[in-house]
Structure formats: structure tokens, C-alpha cells
């Protein structure tokens, strides 16, 4: 199993979700996050007082999937979240050791 973590632009969430649903992905976890990469933050000015925010708001998406599906999940996410501009985000893929469905106690791929 793999855990795919994608950091994307907030307004791209719906498109990514749709693309992943088409692949048969059953669930995902979404978190509002802040961070920075190559994209510069914004400068805010209040009555002349300048504050530069170098943390940019993003959405973090976590999808657990069977090994066979991981490649297509990454591809679909990359395609759906892409605007071509700086700040589109990153995708990380991690090996997933175990998954448990809490209600039934099922483990492994079936639990996903």
C-alpha cells in the first residue's frame, strides 16, 4: 500500500477529488495547511506597517491506496492540480505498512 500526500492550491481541491473518484479512490483526508516552497508569500500593509507572510495557504490531501493504484493516483493528481504556475504544490509517495478499518477490524487493502 502507498500513502500519497499532495500539497495543492486550495481552489484545485474539487478537481483533484473528482479525478481521484473516477479512479475508484474511496476516501481521502484533507487539511488546510500553510507552508512555503519556491512561491513567494504576500506583503500586507496596514497604515504603513508592512508584514510579509512567507507562508502560503495550501490544501494537504492524503490518500491511501493499493500499490497498483498509486501510480495513477499520482498522475491524476498531478494533472488535475496543475495550473502551470509556480506554487502548484508537491506530491509525496510513502510506503504504507498497515491499514485497519476501525468498524470491522479488517486490515490491508480491504480496509482501504
Amino acid at each position: 500500500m502507498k500513502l500519497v500526500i499532495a500539497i495543492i492550491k486550495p481552489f484545485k481541491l474539487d478537481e483533484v477529488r473528482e479525478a481521484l473518484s473516477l479512479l475508484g479512490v474511496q476516501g481521502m483526508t484533507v487539511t488546510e495547511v500553510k507552508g512555503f516552497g519556491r512561491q513567494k508569500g504576500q506583503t500586507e500593509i496596514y497604515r504603513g506597517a508592512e508584514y510579509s507572510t512567507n507562508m502560503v495557504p495550501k490544501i494537504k490531501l492524503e490518500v491511501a491506496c493499493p500499490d497498483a493504484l498509486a501510480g495513477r493516483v499520482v498522475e491524476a493528481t498531478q494533472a488535475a492540480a496543475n495550473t502551470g504556475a509556480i506554487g502548484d504544490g508537491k506530491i509525496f509517495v510513502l510506503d504504507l505498512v498497515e491499514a485497519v478499518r476501525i468498524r470491522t477490524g479488517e486490515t490491508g487493502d480491504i480496509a482501504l
Partner: protein
Amino acid sequence: MTLLKRVASATTALGATAFLAMPAWAQEAVAAAPAAPAPTVDKGDTAWMMMSTVLVLLMILPGLALFYGGLTRAKNMLSTMTQVGAAAAFAMLIWVMWGYTMAFGDGGNAVISGFGKAFLSGVTPASTAATFTAGVAIPEYVFISFQMTFAAITVALVLGSVVERIKFSAVMVFAAIWLTIVYFPIAHMVWASTGYLFILGALDFAGGTVVHINAGVSALVAAIILGKRIGYPTERMAPHSMTMTGIGTGLLWVGWFGFNAGSALEANGSAALAMINTFVATAAAGLVWMLVERLNGHKGSALGFCSGIVAGLVAVTPAAGNSGPFGAIVLGSIASIVCYYAVAVLKPKLGYDDALDAFGIHGIGGMVGAIGTAFTYAPGFGGPGAADYAIVPKLLVQLQAVGITIVWATIGTVIAIYVAKAITGLRVSTEVEREGLDLGEHGERAYNY
């Protein structure tokens, strides 16, 4: 027209009326006292002044509370709103106990009135206060209430520089002393018929010196003594809710019609002039502030718009009935430009932490307004002054009024703040300041999601 807020006890006048109403005594009465006719209380004037009075209350709660509260960090929202509201409430009680008599009571001297009307002694529903028109009066209770709201908002304005770190208890002690030794004497000097600056002929229609320079300078002095907020100016201290500040700005502008047009004390042409000036000076100032931001290479901002509106309102306050509409537009525009540089350039350069720019906007804007009124009053600039009005002598009087207010406010604030410090410690602990005054001082949070 200067602002005459002289209070005439109605007793004599009403007595005269009673006499005249009795035919048998009429001739005797006329022979004995060919006094001025009894003042008439007009229902229209009275209704307008009651309306104006509650409009000024609207400026404080929720206007100023939201305006100031939105500018603070979320952890200090309730503290800021509560300090504004409680200081204003305290001012109302002090006003009826000894404030009114000190400012507008009978007798006294050029600096304060006598204490004969302490606890509103002798005031009845039949008592009247004079307006600017001979023979026209308003009920004294209305005048007392109207002036009460001015004392209340002025002390609340001062707090703009010290929020986010001053103790609630210190605010209350400061308010009582400051009103007594600073506000009441200055209100008397400028607005009472026996006051020093009133006699000199200082023009202050609705409170450029009494309210704004006074509050602004006091705010600066208080902020310097209190010290900077922890982390100022390196930590982020952006307004937590520009939405609240925007709402507060709107309420201030609406309420300000009571403040300015109400200062005519009658529902007449002078009030109408103050009304249109309160529209156009403010409109110009809001736009000019955004323009100045653009000229300085920034984006025109919402806070800039709100700041300009308040700067314009402040500047037009002394000029409200003392200016033509186009003089008011110029005055508002100049005030916006000067205030912008005061808060964006002067403040960081000098390094004091006037948290919400009470000095930068009310103090500086008040000075621009008070000095500018000497010009806007001139008929040559479209003002209501007489044809023989001379700018230079009036300018000197205005400068003297500004100077006296600055010196008086500075000395009085030093005393009031140090007394508050001795009694309450003045400043919250470092932990409370870090955690926020809402929790530390009031045991609540503004936002519970």
C-alpha cells in the same frame, strides 16, 4: 458662528413668563424688569438634539468599539471593546456627578465653572439651555445628555493608543482623573460663555480641540509612559478583523452627524451646513488617503479608506458649521494627507507605539482641522464668516487654542497616568499580554468556534 453652549438657568425666564401671563401684573412686571423674553423651547430642536445625542452614543457603542476592536489582535478584541464601553459608561456617571457643573455650571472662572450644579442640583424638566439663537432654548436635560456623550467618547478615544497592554482597572482610574483635570476644564474653556478660549473667539464647532486634539495628545503621552506592546514593531500586529473595523467606520460616520450637526444645538441652517460638510469632507478624505497610498507605491487599501474617513471626520469637526462645503473638501483632503504621513512615516521614525493611531489621526487631524478652520471660515473660501473677517488674527487665536490644549492635555495626562500606575500598576503582566487581555483580564474569548 462660534459655538455657544451657554446654559441659562430657566428659573428667571420662567418666572417672567408666569408674570406676563397674568394681566394684572403684566405692566408691573414690564416696568420692573424689561428683561429678555422667555426662551422658547422648540419641539423640532428638542427632537433633533435628542436624536443627535443618541447618534453620538452610536459612535461609541458599537461604532468606536468595533472600529478599535477590529484593529487589535483577536486575543484582545473583548478587552478593547470593554475598555471603550466601560470608560464611556463611567464618564456618563461622572458627568452627572461633577462633570457637567465643572464644564457648564454657573459661576466659576475662565478655566472651570462653579460647583453649584454638582449632582445636577437645581435642574428640572423645565430648565433650559441656551442655543445660538436669542430666545431659543432646548431642555437642559437634553443639553446635559448631549454634552455627556462628548465626554464619554473623548475618554474612549484616548484608549486607542494604550489597548492590548493596559489594565482594565488602570483605564477606569485614568478615566476618572483625566476627565476631571483635563476634559472638563478644556470643554469649559472652549465652549462655555465664560471660558477663556470662548471669550478669545476660538472656533471649535463640535470639538476639534476639546475632543480630538485633546484625546490625541493625551493618547500619545499615555502610550509613551505605558511603553510599547511586547514585540512591537517586529511581531505581526495586523488588524484581526478589517470587517469589524469597516462596520465601526460606517457607524462612526453616521453617528458623527449627531456630533457635528447636533453641535448647532438647533435643527436649522447651521446644522444643515454642518451636515453637508460632514458628508463631503469625509468623502474626500477617504478617497484621498487611498490616493496617497497609490502615490507611495502601495495598493489602495480598505484600512486606508477607513482611516481617511476618520481623519476627514476629525478635521471637519471644528469646521463643521464654520466652513463652506468646498472648504470642507479641501480641509478633509489635507487632513488625510497629513495624517497618512503621521501614521505611516512619523510614527515608525519616532518609535512610539500608538497602537491604533489615536494621536496620528485624532491628534494630528484635529490640529489640521482647528488651524484650517481659520481659513475655511473666511467668506473668500466660501465660509460663513462676515465680509470683514480677517484670517490672520483668527489664525493666531486658533493656534493659541491648539497650544493650550496640547500643553493642558500633556500635563494632565502625565498626572492621570501616574496616579493610575500608583493605584493599579497600569500594565498587565507579560503572561497576560502574551496570552491576550480577553482571557487575562476578562476571562473570556471573543471567538469560540
